[in-house]
């Protein structure tokens, strides 16, 4: 026989006094716990402690105004282990952090990409591309700690960095110096006196000074790495806007303002505006978005979907931005496996670029031709979209032309045409995979007999082994079109499609000896050749999208293909930003 407690149903059971009291106590404990947790949502130095001045709405740049000094900027820390603090040996891994403590020799104007002074205050061009005299800034100093002990940044520092970045300083380890190819031709870099450097090249490289304006090319003290190993970053003396106080890989980092920093804005305001910067590690995008929305970080670069969602929310406390920048999406057809230019052209003609950009970047992109349209010398988007393959109005005809080219190449209706498209990232949210998937969807009805497969097996060796048919990738260039052109030279390390054209090679060599003001016709001549067939299919220049708290000011100065995207990513831009509630 069952007991009354376990028999029957709840409707026949009365509430007991004990039960009500117990329930109330439990509810009270739960509410107290929720309150405790709620009070803990904001760490010390809460970034959202003041109400927003209400400036800025989603999708529009924030108003400027007089910058305010003070406050702590909180940024998300990139995931992934940093294996070296050496800026010349890292692609991007440490740039976010080194950009705050070390400066560049030159930088590029965000709007025009013109060379602007950094640690080099001025220069003389003795012979274009071959001989330069650099004048080092006199008011830049190193941090007052060993081994620099507060001394000025001098000519020997600059000369050392030029030699180091080009591989001259460490010939045995030259292969580990990333981007050394952009310093091609340096024969010698020597200090003539305390503030003057003579730079000589053995072959013309008119882009050499622009190579130093790459956001990742940070100037290190000449004592590194001999007296100071790169393993302990907090010992590294700074000359930049901030001093590093603490760094815990994968956890966080903290910086304070450098009171002796030389930098000012164009209006003469001393930089930086912020008192301190803190990095916090967040494991994934969901956490980042939550941290931004709850006021725990000031800015983030969301993925397309998260960006669209934030934009649609139209919140007063969050502003969204999209800006042109020097970064482009590319399909590299393996020229060794598909040497027939008709195949390259057929693929180029048949892709629907507008659909691709709208799908993968939700409309936040600029059409680009064989050379990134972000460069003023290259064909601009408005010109590209009138060209075969890119023009939506002629898409049907282009598709037919593409099919005919494939048939002429031996693949009628795509029969026998087998292509495996490789996406370096397996994340379903990644632009690489989404773009390839979209192209597959486009090609299926057009070439039903084509064998179009997608390979997402992680392979970190893909740029070197090149064991793929087509690879999807995004490329970031230094702030000069010559650097973009150099990728297409025969045998160039980033010539992933193995393109080779003697005429293009000669024109690119000529570009390195041509003044900047005379480059445009030369670049366009090269593009005209590439438009006749090139395995490197740049299909767009996506805009930099990011979301920030509305109280963050100063972004407008950074917008443009010359700087903001990379500088935000690499931490440099933080020196120019200020908080409206500081």
């Amino acid at each position, binding site marked *: 026989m069952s007991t009354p407690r376990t028999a029957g149903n709840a409707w026949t059971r009365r509430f007991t006094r004990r039960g009500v009291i117990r329930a109330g106590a439990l509810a009270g404990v739960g509410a107290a716990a929720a309150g*405790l*947790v709620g009070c803990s949502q904001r760490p010390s130095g809460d970034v959202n402690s003041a109400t927003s001045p209400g400036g800025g709405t989603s999708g529009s740049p924030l108003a400027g105004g007089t910058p305010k000094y003070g406050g702590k900027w909180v940024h998300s820390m990139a995931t*992934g282990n940093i294996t070296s603090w050496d800026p010349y040996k890292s692609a991007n891994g440490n740039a976010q952090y080194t950009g705050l403590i070390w400066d560049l020799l030159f930088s590029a104007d965000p709007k025009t990409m013109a060379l602007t002074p950094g640690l080099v205050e001025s220069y003389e061009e003795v012979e274009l591309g071959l001989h330069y005299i650099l004048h080092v800034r006199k008011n830049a100093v190193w941090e007052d700690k060993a081994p620099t002990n507060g001394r000025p940044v001098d000519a020997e520092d600059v000369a050392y960095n030029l030699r180091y970045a080009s591989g001259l300083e460490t010939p045995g380890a030259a292969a580990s110096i990333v981007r*050394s190819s952009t310093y091609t031709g340096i024969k010698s870099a020597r200090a003539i006196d305390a503030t003057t450097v003579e730079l000589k090249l053995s072959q013309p490289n008119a882009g050499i000074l622009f190579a130093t304006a790459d956001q990742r090319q940070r100037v290190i003290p000449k004592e590194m790495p001999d007296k100071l190993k790169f393993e302990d970053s907090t010992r590294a003396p700074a000359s930049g806007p901030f001093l590093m106080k603490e760094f815990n890989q*994968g956890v966080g980092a903290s910086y304070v303002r450098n009171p002796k920093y030389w930098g000012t804005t164009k209006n003469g305001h001393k930089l930086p505006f912020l008192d301190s910067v803190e990095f916090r590690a967040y494991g994934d995008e969901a956490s980042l978005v*939550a941290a*931004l929305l709850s006021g725990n970080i000031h800015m983030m670069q969301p993925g397309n979907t998260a960006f669209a969602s934030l934009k649609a929310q139209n919140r007063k406390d969050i502003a969204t931005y999209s800006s042109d920048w020097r970064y482009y999406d590319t399909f590299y057809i393996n020229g060794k496996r598909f040497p027939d230019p008709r195949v390259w052209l057929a693929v180029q003609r048949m892709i629907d670029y507008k659909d691709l950009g709208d799908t993968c970047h939700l409309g936040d992109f600029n059409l680009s031709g064989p050379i990134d349209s972000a460069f003023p010398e290259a064909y601009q988007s408005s010109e590209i979209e009138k060209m075969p393959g890119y023009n939506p109005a002629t898409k049907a005809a282009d598709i037919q032309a593409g099919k005919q080219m494939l048939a002429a190449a031996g693949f009628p209706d795509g029969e026998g045409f087998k292509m495996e498209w490789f996406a370096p990232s397996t994340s379903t949210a990644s632009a690489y995979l989404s773009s390839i998937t979209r192209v597959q969807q486009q090609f299926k009805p057009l070439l039903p007999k084509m064998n179009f497969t997608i390979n997402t097996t992680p392979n970190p060796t893909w740029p*070197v082994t090149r064991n793929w048919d087509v690879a999807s990738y995004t490329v970031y260039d230094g702030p000069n079109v010559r650097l973009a052109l150099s990728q297409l030279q025969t045998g160039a390390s980033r010539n992933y499609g193995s393109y080779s054209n003697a005429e293009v090679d000669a024109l690119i060599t000529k570009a390195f000896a041509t003044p900047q003001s005379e480059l445009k016709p030369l670049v366009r001549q090269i593009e005209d050749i590439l438009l006749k067939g090139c395995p490197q299919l740049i299909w767009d220049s996506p805009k930099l999208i990011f979301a920030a708290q509305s109280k963050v000011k100063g972004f407008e100065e950074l917008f443009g293909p010359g700087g903001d995207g990379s500088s935000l990513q690499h931490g440099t831009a933080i020196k120019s930003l200020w908080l409206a509630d500081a």
Partner: protein
Amino acid sequence: MARYLSRTLLGTVPTLLLLLLIVSLLTKLVPGDAVDSMVNQMGGDSGATEAQRQRLREELGLTRSIPEQYVAFLRDVGNGSLGHSLYSSQTVRSLISSRALPTIELTVLALVGSTALGVLTGVVSSVRRNSKLDYLMRLFVLIFLSVPNFVIAVCVVLLPAFYWGWSPPLQYVPIYEGPTRNLLFFATPVTALAIGLAASVARLTRTSTLEVIGMDYVRTARAKGLTERRIVYRHVLKNSLMPVLTLVGLQVGFLLSGSIIVEQVFSIPGLGTLLIGSITQRDWPVVQGLTLISGVVVISVSMTVELLYGWFDPRLGAR
């Protein structure tokens, strides 16, 4: 007991050796190695020639044969270092030591919390069988059994932020820097990790308790006039927890793997994030070391569970 323990310990050695051998072989099947990953981190096209890469591989010991590498690893296990990270040259032991505390805290809290919540829920549900409370509890059990912990983790982090501008604490604070902030930080990830396990425990506890409640000796206890509370907690619970104990022991392995994703979502600098980073970078000595540690943990928990059987049921202990 001592003989039983020593026999069991001896039996774990071949298990661990086999586990390590399997992991060593599997890592060799993955495309790319640490050198390729390093070069790729430097930009993939740093210009390193194949000869330079090969020299680096020789320096790192990657050109040795698989048996040689396996024997070298066993030697490192013997001397306690567990090998050296190919990236940082730190010993694997020091790397694991520096990242172990958050994971230990997360899994212990999740295990304790899920067991306590699951047992309590199961007992209450069984005692209040067919009541509204029972139905409600079973509904929640079903929901949390069905929803993966990473979905719960992301929802808990993202949804409140979207709708109310609130997020749980996402900055790890070590316990020695602030016990209260540490516990508050872990409240959400522990909940995300533990709730699924609690649901399993609750379901099994309910079933097991119902089975025991229907036994003759329980009816006799009632006839003797004992209170329901005394009957349940003194006579029923101990006998109904045997299968639960087995489940909890088995779930430790799932907790360790589940903690990897939770650590990612909540930015906990523990062994899970270390494992993901090491796999991505092909830092196999670290992966092997972590595999060894997790194997030891799982085996230790299994042994502990077996010992606890004896406490719960003296008949098994005597045997």
